[in-house]
C-alpha cells in the first residue's frame, strides 16, 4: 500500500492557501515553512511565459534524506518520507543531501513535511490538500493519483503542449506526482535527480548495529561524496540556466 500526493502546477494559482494551512495545522515556528510559493517568468515584455513554483517535499522513494540520516529520524512509511524530530541529532546531513533543497533546521533539529501523518492516520486529508482552492492538490492511493495526473496532463496539452507528468521515475519514484506545464528543466526541476548510493549501502549495513566509530567515518565519507555530487549538480543546473537565460530573462520572485 502506497499513498501519493498530486501537485498540478498547471492548476496551482500561487495563493499560498496550502502554505498557511500547513503552517497553522502543523504549528510551524516563524520563518519555517514546508511549502514555498514563487512565480517563474521568462521572456521579455510583452512576450512572456509564466508558471508557479510550489516548492515542497517530494517524498522520494529512494530518498537522499533517509539514506543519509544517521539516527533513523527520517524513515519511510506508506510511500512517503516521515520525520521524527525527537530522534533527530541535528547533524544536517539531510539538509545537505536533498536534491530538492527541502529539509530545513528549526530549533536545532531538521524538519520537513511528513505528509500530515497523524491526520491521515485518523482518516483525514493533509491540511494543504484540504484547503487548496485551485484543485491543484490531491492525496490518495498511488495508482489513482498516477491515473489522475496523466488524465490532467492529457487535457492540459491543449494549453501546454509540453505538459507532462513528473515523478514516476525520478528518485525511485516520487511520493508527489507533479503535472508540469513544461519540461522539468524549464521549471527548475532535475530530470534525473542525484541520489546517494554510497551512504545507502552503508546505512543498510551499519544501522542495525548502531553508530560505531567505523560507521561514522564511513558515513562521513559517504556524505562528503553526496555533497560533492550535489554541488556538481548545482553547477550543472546553473550552467543550464545560464544557457536558457541567453534567450530570455529569468524572473523568479515571490508574489
Amino acid at each position: 500500500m502506497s499513498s501519493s500526493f498530486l501537485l498540478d502546477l498547471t492548476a496551482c494559482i500561487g495563493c499560498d492557501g496550502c502554505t498557511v494551512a500547513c503552517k497553522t495545522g502543523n504549528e510551524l515556528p516563524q520563518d519555517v515553512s514546508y511549502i514555498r510559493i514563487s512565480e517563474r517568468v521568462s521572456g521579455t515584455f510583452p512576450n512572456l511565459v509564466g508558471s508557479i513554483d510550489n516548492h515542497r517535499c517530494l517524498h522520494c522513494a529512494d530518498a537522499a534524506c533517509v539514506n543519509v540520516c544517521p539516527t533513523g529520524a527520517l524513515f519511510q512509511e506508506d510511500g512517503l518520507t516521515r520525520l521524527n524530530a525527537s530522534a533527530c541529532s541535528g547533524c544536517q546531513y539531510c539538509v545537505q543531501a536533498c536534491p530538492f533543497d527541502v529539509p530545513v533546521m528549526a530549533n536545532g533539529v531538521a524538519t520537513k513535511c511528513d505528509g500530515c501523518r497523524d491526520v491521515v492516520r485518523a482518516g483525514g486529508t493533509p491540511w494543504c490538500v484540504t484547503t487548496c482552492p485551485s484543485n491543484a492538490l490531491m492525496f490518495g492511493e498511488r495508482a489513482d493519483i498516477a491515473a489522475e495526473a496523466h488524465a490532467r496532463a492529457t487535457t492540459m496539452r491543449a494549453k501546454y503542449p509540453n505538459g507532462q507528468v513528473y515523478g514516476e521515475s525520478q528518485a525511485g519514484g516520487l511520493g508527489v506526482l507533479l503535472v508540469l506545464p513544461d519540461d522539468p528543466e524549464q521549471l527548475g526541476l532535475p530530470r534525473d535527480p542525484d541520489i546517494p548510493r554510497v551512504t545507502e549501502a552503508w546505512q543498510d549495513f551499519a544501522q542495525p548495529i548502531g553508530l560505531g566509530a567505523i560507521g561514522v567515518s564511513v558515513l562521513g565519507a559517504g556524505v562528503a561524496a553526496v555533497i560533492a555530487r550535489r554541488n556538481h549538480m548545482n553547477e550543472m543546473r546553473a550552467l543550464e540556466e545560464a544557457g536558457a537565460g541567453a534567450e530570455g530573462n529569468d524572473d523568479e520572485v515571490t508574489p
Partner: protein
Amino acid sequence: MPKVPLEITRRTLLKSGVAAGVAGAVGTNGMRGAPAFAADIREDAWYRQGEIKITYSVCDMCPWSCGMIVQSVDGVIRKVDGNPKDPKSRGMLCARGQGAVSFSQDPDRLRSPMVRTGERGEGRFREVEWDFALDLIAQEMNKIKDRAGQEAIAFFGHTSGDHWWIGHLAQAWGSPNAASPASAMCISPRDEASLLTFGFPVGGREPLDWERLEAVALIGSHIGEDARNTVMQDFANLHARAGTVVVVDPRFSTVATKSDHWLPIKPGTDTALLLAWMHVLITEGLYDADYIDRWATGFQQLEAHVQDKTPGWAAGICDLEADQIRDSVRALAAHAPRAAIMPGRHVTWYGNDTQRMRAVYLVNALLGAYGREGGIFFNRAPYIGDVPHPPYAVAGSAGGCSAEPADDGERGPLAAGPTGKVRADGVRETFLQGPTAMQELIEPMLTGQPYPIEGLICYGTNLLKSVPDPERTKEALRNLELFVAIDVLPMEHIAWADIVLPEATVLERYEDLYTMATDTPYIHLREPAVEPPYDVKPGWWIAKELGTRIGLDGFFRWEDIEEYLEIRLRSVGSSLDGIRAEGGVLIQQGRPFLEDHEDSSPFLTGSGKIELYSQTLADAGLDPLPEYEPIDEPPDGFYRLLYGRQPTHTFARTQNTPVLHDVTPENAVWLNAEEARSIGVADGAQVMLENQDGAISGPVTVKVTERIRRDAVFLAHGWGHDSEGLSRANGVGASDTKLQTSYALDPISGGAGMRVNYVRIASEA
C-alpha cells in the same frame, strides 16, 4: 487515536487503504520499515491535547465571507477549514482564511476600552471601564444631536459586523451619512452600472455560471492575487477544462500566466477596447441577435455608436495590435452564450468607471450571457425574517457588498434624517446616484458644507489606509467633536480617536446570520469558538449597550444575541440547534435563469429589458452610451501608480497577522526591466516613492520585472503602516494610499477613481 474531524477527508481517494497501511508499514513495497517509535511522532500536537470542539462561522479575513468550520481545544482556536456545505468555501479556504487563527491570536490586539489623554494622533490613552466609555459616547452623541441634529454624526463601517453600525444603529439614530469603503472606494460603479442597465446590482458574488462557463475575460481582475476563494476555485476548474481565458491588464498578473490571450493594455483605455469588441461582435454578426431582440432596448443606437470604433481605432489608443483585439473577442464569441467578462470587484479607477462598467455589461449582453446557462445567472436573496423593531428614522444608504441598494436609485427621494437634511456627500450635486460616498463625507468635516459632520463612529475601517489623501483625513479628524473607533487592532486611525472600543474577532463572537443572494441563496451561522479574550466585547453587544444609552432600546428588544438569532431562525422554521444540525448552513431555492422567470421579466429596469441605451443617463445630461474619454498622461519622469493585491493579505488589515506576515513580509514596487535599466535602478534596491504632489512613501524594495508596462508601476495595497502598535507591520513597505493624494470622482456613482496618481523613484532609501 487523535480526534481529527472527518470534514477534512475531501479528496481522499483511498481512506481504508491508508488506515490499513499504518499497521502493515514495515517491509511493504520493498521499502525500509518504519522504526518502532513511528507511532508517536508529533506527540505534543494540538490535536492530541484534548477534545476538539467544532463550531461554525463565516470568515472575516476578507469581505468574501466563506463558511468555516473552526476547531478549538481547551478554549484555544487551533485550526479553521472551509465548511464543505457552504456554497462559497465548499470546504476550502485561501491563505487569509487559514490565517484567521493567527489574526485572533495577534499579541498586538486592542485589549481594553480606552479614552484619549494626549492630542489627536499622538496615540496616548488611558484604559477605562466599558460603562464609562459607553456613557461618555452617549453623552457626546446627544450633545451633537441637540446642537446640530442626528445627521451631524457619520457612521463608517466595514467587516463582518458593519451592519450593526452603518445599517441598524445609523438608521435607528437617524443619520443618512452612513458609509462603507466597500461602496464608493470599491464596487459602486460596478453596481450602479448594473442598476442602470439591468435594474439590479451585481451583488456580493459575481453571478457567473462558472460550472458551465466556457470562456471568460478578466479586465483588471487579478484572480490568484485577488484571492477570493470561490472565484479561484471556479477559475481553476474552467482552466482545468482548458476553457478560454482572456486577460486584459497592463501587468502580466498571476492569472495572465494562465491566459490564452493577454492584452497588455495602456492604463485607462479599457473603454476603447470594449467599444471595439462591440464593433467586432456587431459588424461580424457574432452577437446573439435573437436574444438582443427579445431582451434588450437601444440596439440600433448602440450599433450606430460603435460603427467607427474599429479594432484599428482602438489599437492606437490602447497600445495593442488590432488583431489581438479582434482575436480575443472572437475567442469569447465562439463560446457564447457561455462566455462573459467578469464584472470584477475594485473598479474605482479613473472616475469614468460607471461608463466603463456599462461597456462591460453591453459586451456581455451582446454575447447573450444574462440568464443563460453557462453565462450569468440571476441572484436571489434568501428569505429570512427580521427581529421586529420600530420604524427606522432614516432609510439605509450605506450600500456596500451585500446591503440593499440605496433608495435613491431611479432618482427617487433621497434618504433624509429626522431634521430633514439629506446626505452630506453631495449626491445629485456632484454625482448622480449610489450608496453614500464615504470619501465625500471627509470634506463636510473640514468645511461644514453642506452642513457640518461633527461626530464619527468608525467600525473596522482603517481611515488612513483606505480614503485617498490621508493628510486631508487627518485634518478632518482633528476637527471632529467626537471620534469613536471600534476595532480589533491598533490601526493608524486609532491614534486619532477620542474613545477606542476593542472588539472580539468573528471567531470569538456570535454575529448576525450571514445571508447571501446567489443562485443557491443561503444563510450561514456565525457562532463563537471561544470566549473573547482580554476585556474585548462582541460588536452586537457594543451596539446594543450604546443603543440603549442613546434612547434606542426599542431597537434592541432582545436579551442577548442567541435570542435574536432564534427569533430570526424561527422565521425559516429552524433554530440554532437546527442550523447546527444542518452543518451550519441553510440553503434555499434560487431562480437563476431566464426560464425561471416566465411570469415576469427578470430585468427590473423601467422598460423591463436590458437598457443598452440609458434614458436615465441621457435625462441627467450624461452619455447614454459609453464613450471613450482620454485620461491625463503621467508627467515626465513619473509612472502611473497601479495597485492591487497579494493573495496572503487583505486591505490594510492583515499585514500584522503573524502567520501571514511570516509568509509575505512586505510589498515591493514593480518596475519594468527596460525602464529600470534606463534610469539605473537595480532589482532589490530600497527606494522612496514620491507622487505628483510631493507625498513620499517607503522605503520599499524594487522588483525589476518584465511583467509590467514601462508607463506604470505597481504596489500591493495596504502596506506602509505607521502605527507603532503594529509590531510587525509598522514601517514596512510603501503605502499606495499615502501616494493617492488625488482621486477622480465618478459623476454617476460617486466612486473615487484612484489610478490618477503618479509616482517617481525619488531616491535610494
